């Protein structure tokens, strides 16, 4: 399969353009610092903040920090916000796009790690920053949430036949092909887990790299404790519906698809 990929994957552009997308919903307390940090530690990245219908000063704060700002007329949720970033990256011909959350939990100094991993291996379409890949990088989060993440990780790893340790991480670098895919279709809410499945079914390749993440710098997580049960059920539904929905497109020269190979 990797042989096929080598044929159809595009050559890396000589002067790649990079875009950092910062989804922000009422994160005025942190978004300005996030934008400044990205511009300081990864100057090759243009920064666009997606103000997802904030009722505070997130938008102006991001603009003051030097980012371009897309303002949603109303709140669409994290999936819709990130997808605006994909559409923006696609329309403006960016070669690579990274998502950096506006709450400050992603560390912009680690962007270089993602970029390095993307270029180190040919045919990669997404590089995902994982909190759990190295044991010495402890992430401060409640046990219940970590358990949920590990359940998703277990299921996804079985389904896509590749070890996934942090399927809910949004700290991801995408290439042009992944941008094109997700600009067209990105899950509505809690999109990260489903996005991994979509990549797999569309025959795009991903890799995880270990990153350090912070506890949230302020604001309220989109996943409150009351919603975590709903989150679990919704994502599990998405995984199983996704299994029934998407079949990889078989291209000439491929092995014949074997249904059992995708089962759990």
């Amino acid at each position, binding site marked *: 399969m990797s042989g096929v990929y080598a044929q159809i994957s595009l050559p890396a552009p000589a002067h790649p353009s990079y875009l950092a997308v910062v989804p922000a919903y009422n994160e005025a307390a942190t978004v300005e610092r996030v934008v400044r940090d990205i511009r300081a530690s990864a100057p090759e990245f243009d920064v666009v903040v*997606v103000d997802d219908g904030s009722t505070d000063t997130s938008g*102006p704060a991001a*603009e*003051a*920090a*030097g980012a*371009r*700002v*897309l*303002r*949603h*007329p*109303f709140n*669409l949720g994290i999936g*819709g916000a990130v*997808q*605006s970033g994909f*559409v*923006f990256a696609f*329309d*403006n*011909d960016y070669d690579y796009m990274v998502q950096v959350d506006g709450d400050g939990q992603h560390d912009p100094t680690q962007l270089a790690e993602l970029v390095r991993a993307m270029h180190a291996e040919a045919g990669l379409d997404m590089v995902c920053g994982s909190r759990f890949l190295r044991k010495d990088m402890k992430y401060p989060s409640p046990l219940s949430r970590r358990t949920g993440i590990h359940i998703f990780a277990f299921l996804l790893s079985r389904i896509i036949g590749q070890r996934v340790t942090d399927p809910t991480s949004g700290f991801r670098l995408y290439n042009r092909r992944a941008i094109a895919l997700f600009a067209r279709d990105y899950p*509505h809410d809690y999109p990260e887990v489903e996005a991994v499945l979509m990549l797999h079914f569309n025959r795009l390749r991903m890799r995880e790299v270990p990153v350090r993440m912070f506890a949230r710098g302020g604001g309220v997580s989109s996943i409150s404790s009351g919603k975590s049960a709903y989150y679990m059920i919704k994502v599990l539904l998405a995984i199983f519906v996704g299994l029934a929905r998407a079949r990889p497109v078989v291209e000439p020269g491929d092995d014949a698809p074997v249904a059992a190979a995708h089962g759990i």
Partner: protein
Amino acid sequence: MELRLQLVAVVLTVGLLFIVLELVRRRRLLERYALLWLFSAVVLMGLAAWRGLLESVAALMGIYYAPSALFVIAFGFILVLLLHFSIAVSKLADQSKVLAQRLALLEERERVASGRPRADEEIELEPARVTSVGRDEVQARDSASLEMTKPQLERTARR
């Protein structure tokens, strides 16, 4: 089936049919969504008015008390209608998401294209404008600021 019950059923279904038709006539209800309602109302009205039909349908379904069959069928129509509306709402939600995203991108492009300085650039431009004396100087500066946005414009126009 008791005559009184039949009368009530006929009046209700005729009323429903009339309301749906009236809503369509006043353009309060799109034909697309009225069709399923009309179909339900007509079928229920037929069953309510035509005694023999309802009784044979009830017998077919193994229901001894014929009016119960009317409720079962009405319930089935309601389920189908609700599902139909859930699908319609999902589609609308998806469409409004795409519209909101497109609007956000267009507005941003418009802000950039209209050359309105962003907050961080404004700080540099503002004092220069105030101290400038000659009109040529201002014009030169204006065209310079246009130059600044030109690469961005080309980028957006390229797609």
